[in-house]
C-alpha cells in the first residue's frame, strides 16, 4: 500500500494527495489536543503535585504531615472515603436486581420504566439536595408526616450528627446508581445464555452459576461503572456542601481555595484526591487485566430475554416504580419548594405561588447567573464541537499512527474529578492573564470545555463509526478535496450525533458544580449553579428562589438530555461507561 503511494506521488507532486492531507489534519488535531491538555490538564495537576511536595525550596512531606496531624482533615478524608465506599456498595445492591431484570426479562411497559430509571443521572444532585433538605429538616415534611401518623413522638434530626453522612450517601446513590446499572446491564446482556444452560444441564445450582460463570464474566463491566461511582461520590462538592456536611474532603478543599497561598495544606489534600483517583483506576485495571473475554458465540444465539406477562412482572413493577420514585423524590421536593407560598408546620404547602419564578426575572443574581451560564456553556460547547468532532474524525478514520492514544488522551478528563481541575486552575493561573480572581470567564469556559470534551468525542465517534468510509471515498473519486468531502458528506451524515454531543456538553456545563463554585469568585461572574448556591445561603426567601432557579435548570437539562437521547438512541448509555 505504502509502495504504491510512493510511486504514485511523483505523478501529482504539485497537489498534496488526500492521504497526505488526512495525515496533516491528523497531526494538527493531535497537536491542538496535546497543547490544550498540557496547559489545562497536565500543568494544573503537576502544579498541585509540585506544590504539595515542596516546602522551603526543596522536596518535603511536611504538608502531608500537617494534613494527617489535623483531626479535622483526617476526619474529612475518612468521611469522604466512607461516602465513596458506601455509595458504591449501595449502588451495586440497588443496581444488580435492576440490571438482571433489564437484561433477562421483557414485559409490558419495560421500555418506559427502564428509561425512567435513568432520569436521576441527568438531574443535578446538587439541586436535589436543596429540596431533600427541606423534606428532612427538623420541622420538615418527613418528620411532620411521621408525627402525624404517630410513628414518632418527637422530630428526628435527620441532618445532624451521623445522619447527615447517610443523607449525603443516599443522595449520591439516588443520583449515581444508573451508572452501575447501565454497565451491569450491558455486561449481563453480553453473556451468552447457553453458558448458563450448559451449567444447568450439569446440575449447577443457580447461585453457583452466578458465582462461577456470570460474575467472572460481568466483573470487568461492573468495575467500569463502580469506579466512576466511587470517584464521583468521593469528590462531589455540591451535595455535602448543600446538605451542610462540612467534614468531607471536597468541602474542605472548597473552603481552602481562597487562602491557599497562606495555607498550603490544601495542596496536600488535593494531591491526596489525585492519588486516590489514580490508585482506584490502577486497582480496577489490574484486577480486571486479562479478564475480559470475548463471548465466542457465533451463528445462532438464543435470546436470553424472557417474555413474561404483566401479572408475573408485578414484583418487577414494584421495584422499578419504588426506585424511580425514590430517585426523583429530591427533585420533586425542589419543585414543591419552589412553588410553595405558605409552608409552615404542614407536610405539604398550604398555598402555592409562582412568585419565586417571577423573582428570578426581577432580581439581579438569578438573571446574572442565567446570562453567564448561557455565555460560558455556549462558548465551551462550541470549543468542544470543533475539537471533539475533529478528534473523533482523526480517531475513527485512523488518520495518524497513534489514533488510539489520542482517543485515550481525550478520555482522561472523564477520570479526573472536577474539584481537582478547578483547584489546579486556581493555583496555576492566579496572577496570570487568566487570573480567576479578576475575571474567571476564560478559565470557566476552558474548564467546562475540557471536562465535557469526552462526551463530544464519544458522540461524534459513534456517528462516524456508523458512516462508511466508502461514502467519503466515493466523493473523493469525483475529485472532491478532503475538506469539501468533510463539509458536504461527512458532517451532514453525522449531524444528529454532533447535535446530541452539543446538547450534552451544553447541559452538563450549565449545571456544572465544582468548577463553577470554585472558579467564580465575584458575583458579577457567577454562573447559574453558584447563583443557586449563594441564594440558598441567603436568609428569607433565598431558599425558595434558589429552588425556582434549580427547577429552571432541571427543565433546561431535561430538554437537552431528551433531545440528545432521541438523536443518539441506544448509544446514549455508552457515554457513561469508562474504559
Amino acid at each position: 500500500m505504502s509502495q504504491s503511494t510512493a510511486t504514485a506521488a511523483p505523478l501529482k507532486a504539485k497537489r498534496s494527495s488526500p492521504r497526505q492531507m488526512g495525515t496533516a489534519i491528523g497531526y494538527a488535531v493531535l497537536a491542538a489536543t496535546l497543547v490544550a491538555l498540557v496547559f489545562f490538564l497536565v500543568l494544573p495537576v503537576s502544579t498541585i503535585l509540585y506544590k504539595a511536595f515542596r516546602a522551603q525550596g526543596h522536596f518535603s512531606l511536611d504538608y502531608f504531615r500537617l494534613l494527617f496531624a489535623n483531626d479535622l482533615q483526617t476526619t474529612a478524608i475518612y468521611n469522604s472515603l466512607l461516602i465513596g465506599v458506601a455509595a458504591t456498595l449501595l449502588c451495586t445492591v440497588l443496581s444488580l436486581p435492576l440490571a438482571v431484570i433489564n437484561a433477562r426479562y421483557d414485559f409490558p411497559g419495560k421500555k418506559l420504566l427502564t428509561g425512567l430509571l435513568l432520569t436521576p443521572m441527568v438531574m443535578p444532585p446538587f439541586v436535589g439536595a436543596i429540596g431533600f433538605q427541606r423534606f428532612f429538616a427538623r420541622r420538615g415534611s418527613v418528620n411532620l408526616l411521621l408525627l402525624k401518623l404517630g410513628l414518632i413522638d418527637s422530630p428526628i434530626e435527620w441532618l445532624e450528627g451521623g445522619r447527615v453522612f447517610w443523607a449525603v450517601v443516599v443522595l449520591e446513590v439516588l443520583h449515581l446508581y444508573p451508572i452501575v446499572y447501565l454497565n451491569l446491564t450491558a455486561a449481563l446482556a453480553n453473556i451468552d445464555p447457553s453458558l448458563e444452560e450448559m451449567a444447568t444441564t450439569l446440575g449447577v445450582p443457580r447461585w453457583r452459576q452466578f458465582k462461577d460463570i456470570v460474575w467472572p464474566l460481568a466483573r470487568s463491566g461492573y468495575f467500569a461503572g463502580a469506579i466512576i461511582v466511587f470517584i464521583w461520590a468521593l469528590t462531589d462538592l455540591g451535595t455535602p456542601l448543600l446538605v451542610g456536611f462540612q467534614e468531607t474532603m471536597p468541602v474542605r478543599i472548597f473552603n481552602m481555595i481562597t487562602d491557599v497561598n497562606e495555607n498550603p495544606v490544601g495542596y496536600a489534600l488535593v494531591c491526596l484526591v489525585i492519588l486516590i483517583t489514580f490508585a482506584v483506576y490502577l486497582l480496577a485495571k489490574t484486577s480486571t487485566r486479562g479478564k475480559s473475554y470475548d463471548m465466542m458465540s457465533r451463528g445462532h444465539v438464543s435470546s436470553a430475554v424472557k417474555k413474561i406477562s404483566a401479572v408475573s412482572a408485578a414484583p418487577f413493577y414494584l421495584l422499578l416504580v419504588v426506585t424511580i420514585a425514590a430517585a426523583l423524590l429530591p427533585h420533586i421536593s425542589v419543585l414543591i419548594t419552589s412553588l410553595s407560598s405558605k409552608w409552615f408546620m404542614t407536610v405539604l404547602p398550604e398555598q402555592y405561588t409562582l412568585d419565586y419564578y417571577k423573582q428570578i426575572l426581577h432580581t439581579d443574581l438569578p438573571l446574572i447567573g442565567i446570562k453567564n451560564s448561557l455565555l460560558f456553556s455556549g462558548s465551551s460547547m462550541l470549543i468542544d464541537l470543533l475539537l471533539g468532532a475533529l478528534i473523533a474524525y482523526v480517531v475513527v478514520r485512523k488518520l495518524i499512527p497513534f489514533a488510539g492514544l489520542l482517543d485515550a488522551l481525550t478520555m482522561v478528563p472523564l477520570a479526573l474529578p472536577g474539584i481537582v481541575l478547578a483547584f489546579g486552575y486556581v493555583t496555576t493561573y492566579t496572577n496570570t492573564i487568566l487570573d480567576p480572581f479578576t475575571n474567571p470567564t476564560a478559565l470557566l469556559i476552558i474548564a467546562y470545555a475540557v471536562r465535557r470534551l469526552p462526551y463530544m468525542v464519544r458522540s461524534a465517534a459513534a456517528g462516524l463509526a456508523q458512516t462508511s468510509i466508502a461514502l467519503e471515498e466515493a466523493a473523493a473519486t469525483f475529485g472532491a478535496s478532503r475538506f469539501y468531502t468533510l463539509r458536504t458528506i461527512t458532517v451532514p451524515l453525522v449531524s444528529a450525533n454532533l447535535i446530541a454531543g452539543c446538547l450534552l456538553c451544553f447541559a452538563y456545563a450549565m449545571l456544572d458544580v465544582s468548577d463553577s463554585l470554585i472558579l467564580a469568585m465575584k458575583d458579577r461572574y457567577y454562573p447559574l449553579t453558584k447563583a443557586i448556591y449563594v441564594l440558598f445561603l441567603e436568609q428569607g426567601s433565598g431558599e425558595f428562589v434558589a429552588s425556582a432557579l434549580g427547577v429552571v435548570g432541571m427543565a433546561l437539562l431535561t430538554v437537552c438530555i431528551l433531545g440528545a437521547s432521541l438523536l443518539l438512541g441506544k448509544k446514549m448509555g455508552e457515554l457513561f461507561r469508562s474504559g
Partner: protein
Amino acid sequence: MEVTFDHVSKKYGDVLAVEDLNLKIAEGSLHFLLGPSGCGKTTTLRLLAGLESTTSGRILFGGKDVTALPAAERGIGMVFQNYALWPHMTVAKNIDYGLGLKRLSGVQREQRLKEALELTQLTRLADRLPGQLSGGQQQRVALARALAIRPTVLLLDEPLSNLDAQLRLEMRDNISRIHRQTKITTVYVTHDQKEALSMGTEVSVLRAGRLIQSASPRQLYHHPATPFIAKFIGETNLVNATYRGDDDGHHLFECGFGHILTTRRKQVLSPGQAVTLSFRPETISVQVDGAARPSVNPLRVVLEHLTYLGESEQLALRTSDQQILRANIFNPPEHDLQEGTAVVCNVHPEHILVLPVEHDLSSGT
C-alpha cells in the same frame, strides 16, 4: 438408553413449535433430527435436555418418565451449537467443572478428565483458554465436557454448523468414532442432510413442528414419504401428474408433457387421482434425438443448459410444457451436444416414486 416421545407438544404462546411428537430412539443409536431452520428440531432437543418444559405429553428415558425431571437429573450431556464454553476457564477446568458436582473421588475425577481429554485428543491443550483455540478444537472441548460426566444420552445441537467445510468432514468422522467407542445413545440435530445421511443410524425429518418420517438414511433417500423429503434429502425432479389406470403391469400417469409409466407397487390409487412423481437427476439418461432406442418412458425435451464437471455433467432440460428437469450424467461420453438441441431422455419406471401431492413446498425452508 432408549428415548421415547409420547404425544409431546410444545407451545410458545400461540405458536406450536412441536406438535404431537411420537418417536422411539433406539438404545445406542446415533439418531438425527433433521429439518430446515424453524422446524422445531432444536426445541425437541431442548425438551429432551429439560431446558424447556413440554406443554403436553411425556418423555421417557428407558421406560422412566422424565418429563418433570430437571435437566441435571436426566443424565444427559449436551453440546450447544455455539459450544457454550466458559471463556474464563481452561479446557481442563471446563471439563472438570461438571465433574465437581458429581459424587466422585479425587482419583475418579482425574481419571474421567484424562479419559475425556484423550477421547477428544485434547490432552495437549488442557491448560489453554477457549479463546486460544481454533473452532474445531473448541468443538472438541464442548464434546469432551459433555462426555466426561458419562451421560446416558448425548445431545448435539448443530455441533458442526460453525466449522468450515473441510473441518466439518473431519469432525463427522471424529463424532462417528466417539459414538462407536462409547455407544452412547446420541441425538443429533442438524439441517445438513449430508451429515445425517453419512453418519446417522436413523434419521427423523421434521417440518413445521411435525415429524414427517423416521427411517434409516437409505430408506429415506430411496423411499421418501413426501415430496418435501424427496427434495430435502438430495436432489429430485417433482412432476405433478394424474393417475389414469394400469397399463401392462405399470401404472399410467398423465402429466403436462405426456405420459409416464411407473412400476406397479402396493399403492392404492384411483383413476383421476392427483399425485406428485419424483425421480432423481441421476436416474435420467439422455440420447441425442434420432438415435433414440425404444424405451418405456421416452421424454422429448430441449437441452436448455449444460454444465460440464469432468466426472459428471449436469443438464437442465425443458419439457414441452416449459418445466425444467434436472439430469446428472455420470462418466459422460464425449459428444458435442449444443444447448437448444432437442433430445430424448429416459427414466426407468422403477426409479419413479409416486408421492402424495403436497401444497406449499416453499414454507419452512
